[in-house]
């Protein structure tokens, strides 16, 4: 709370002052605002967004000026923060969490001349674009590796909240695992939070206590990886390369790469060509990548690399039938591929997954 107010004050001072002493000779830089869910040092979700912000600053230099506000809860405060940014002359605002959605819509309605970019949401308007990463592609690759490495054929998934993005991740991991080991199963624990290290660690322990010998996570701290390390079990990092938190434990991590998108969209504003769009990029756009595979035999690493290449080229579309749900009902018929619309509403689990997403 203290820190947030402080950040806001500093921010206000920083973008209030130039307005008073406006230089008449130089073109003013375009102001770009970023609204962050966590602290920039969370070493996960928000950290990756901030890396992309810095990349944009490096790319455009004096032409832009960025402001970020961290620790913004997914509530009415978010709308105030966005209004403050709009009122202080920011032309483009990146709202980087799903829960900001309705506040983005409200703020955008009040400020039609400001462009809004909402991460992972689905509501658009003339001045609101949506952007997201096909995280499930990385999950599938993780699943393939887990299928090869798990002796018990049982993986554990530390999840956050029951939204389609998490369901896609669970299912893609399971499909990847079953592609190399048809008998593979997995267990899921949801902690109902994106960032709660002790609880994330406890969830990983609960999964390992029940025999899971590979851990993956859909929460933002390295705690599950640390818990795995303490028992000599291997796992995957989330959002960013977390190898330094648990020596010899991280197999790989799905790494979010927002920079290409941020640079392109800021460029569009500079050129005056910004349009409302809906972007869902994966390995092919460079928005998703995985750090070098580690702590596994070479043939498994090679298989991982080949899987990434297949997804990148479009040869492997991940959600390809036949796919049955937990009750055995065929959800995706043989020879068909789930379309993006069905994917973005996914609320059922693939056969082989223990647990419920409610």
């Amino acid at each position: 709370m203290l820190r947030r107010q402080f950040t806001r004050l500093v921010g206000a001072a920083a973008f209030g002052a130039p307005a008073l002493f406006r230089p008449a000779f130089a073109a003013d830089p375009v102001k770009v605002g970023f609204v962050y869910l966590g602290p920039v040092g969370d070493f996960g979700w928000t950290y990756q967004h901030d890396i992309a912000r810095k990349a944009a600053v490096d790319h455009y230099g004096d032409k832009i000026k960025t402001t970020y506000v961290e620790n913004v809860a997914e509530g009415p405060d978010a709308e105030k923060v966005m209004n403050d940014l709009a009122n202080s002359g920011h032309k483009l605002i990146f709202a980087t969490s799903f829960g900001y959605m309705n506040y983005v819509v409200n703020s955008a309605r009040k400020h039609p001349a400001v462009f809004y970019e909402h991460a992972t949401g689905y509501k658009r308007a003339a001045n609101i674009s949506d952007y997201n990463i096909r995280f499930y592609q990385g999950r599938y690759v993780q699943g393939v590796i887990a299928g090869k490495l798990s002796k018990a054929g049982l993986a554990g998934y530390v999840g956050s909240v029951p939204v389609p993005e998490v369901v896609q991740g669970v299912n893609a991991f399971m499909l990847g695992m079953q592609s190399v080991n048809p008998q593979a199963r997995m267990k899921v624990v949801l902690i109902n939070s994106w960032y709660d290290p002790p609880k994330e660690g406890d969830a990983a322990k609960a999964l390992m206590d029940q025999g899971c010998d590979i851990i993956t996570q859909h929460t933002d701290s390295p705690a599950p990886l640390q818990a795995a390390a303490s028992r000599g079990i291997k796992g995957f990092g989330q959002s960013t390369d977390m190898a330094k938190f648990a020596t010899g434990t991280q197999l790989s991590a799905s790494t979010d790469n927002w920079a290409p998108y941020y640079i392109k969209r800021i460029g569009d504003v500079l050129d005056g060509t910004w349009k409302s769009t809906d972007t869902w990029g994966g390995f092919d756009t460079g928005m998703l990548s995985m750090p070098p595979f580690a702590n596994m035999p070479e043939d498994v690493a090679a298989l991982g690399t080949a899987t990434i290449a297949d997804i990148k080229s479009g040869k492997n579309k991940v959600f390809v039938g036949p796919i049955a749900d937990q009750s055995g009902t065929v959800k995706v018929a043989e020879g068909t591929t789930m379309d993006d619309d069905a994917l973005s509403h996914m609320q059922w689990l693939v056969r082989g997954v223990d647990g419920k997403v409610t």
Partner: protein
Amino acid sequence: MTELLVAFLVSTVAAATPLLLAATGELVAEKAGVLNLGVEGMMLAGAIAGFATANETGVTTLGVLAALLAGTALALLFAVVSLTLQANQTATGLALTIFGRGFSALLGAGYVGIPAPTLPKLHIPLLSDIPILGPVVFGHDILVYLSFAILGAVAWCFRSTHLGLILRAVGDSHDAAHALGYAVLPIRYAAVAFGGALAGLAGAYMSLAYTPLWAQDMTAGRGWVAVALVTFAAWRPFWLLIGAWFFGALMYLSLYVQALGVAVPSALLSALPYIGTVVVLVLISRDRRLIRLHRPAMLGRPFQARA
């Protein structure tokens, strides 16, 4: 099956440790008649002080010491305001929790998302290898054993030492203790400081052993559970241990049950420890005799020496 049970018990003992440490400290303060609701704040201060020190120096022992000092410092602040200046103890305690949360977040801003050294787990040759009992009782880090030792020492102190008698006298009738010549305020200061030190230690356990990371509000209400535990145990040390294990199991169970694949909404399971707290406190409060028998009579009352 046995393996599942052993694993569950090991995790429960670990989850119960911060609760046990903080609750033991609060028990001593309350026995001396001081209600300090700032446990959550003192734990967070200990967590960040311990993490930051261990991270800067690379020595976990120094981190643990720093956590003890940080908890004690906050407790002394509370003592000055509520004992010397006689501000309302409930309000002061709440203020201390709010202060501790904000202050730890401020200090911790630079420590989010970085690794720190972890307290090692002890492996006691022979003892750790006993089936079932071995890993459950003997495979933890040093703070787990320390929490048992401290609880034992506190129980023994209250039961059979002169010091324990004085503490209880101060908590049950400060006027009588004063009349007998005991320095009520210094004794209460010491009890509160002891409580703060243990809360700090509980915080260090969170940030150096349980989840070796710093995150804002990482104690997630454990300080409040510790305060509730003291009432749950009706101020009896042995019951504190039962209570800590019970709540530790409940916190862990909410995740464990999900992994078993039981079809219960995860949101309900997450609420389980809190629902449990309410239910248990209601049940305990029904037995008025038990409460009256054990509750320090001067709990929360300010003391002013007369004549």
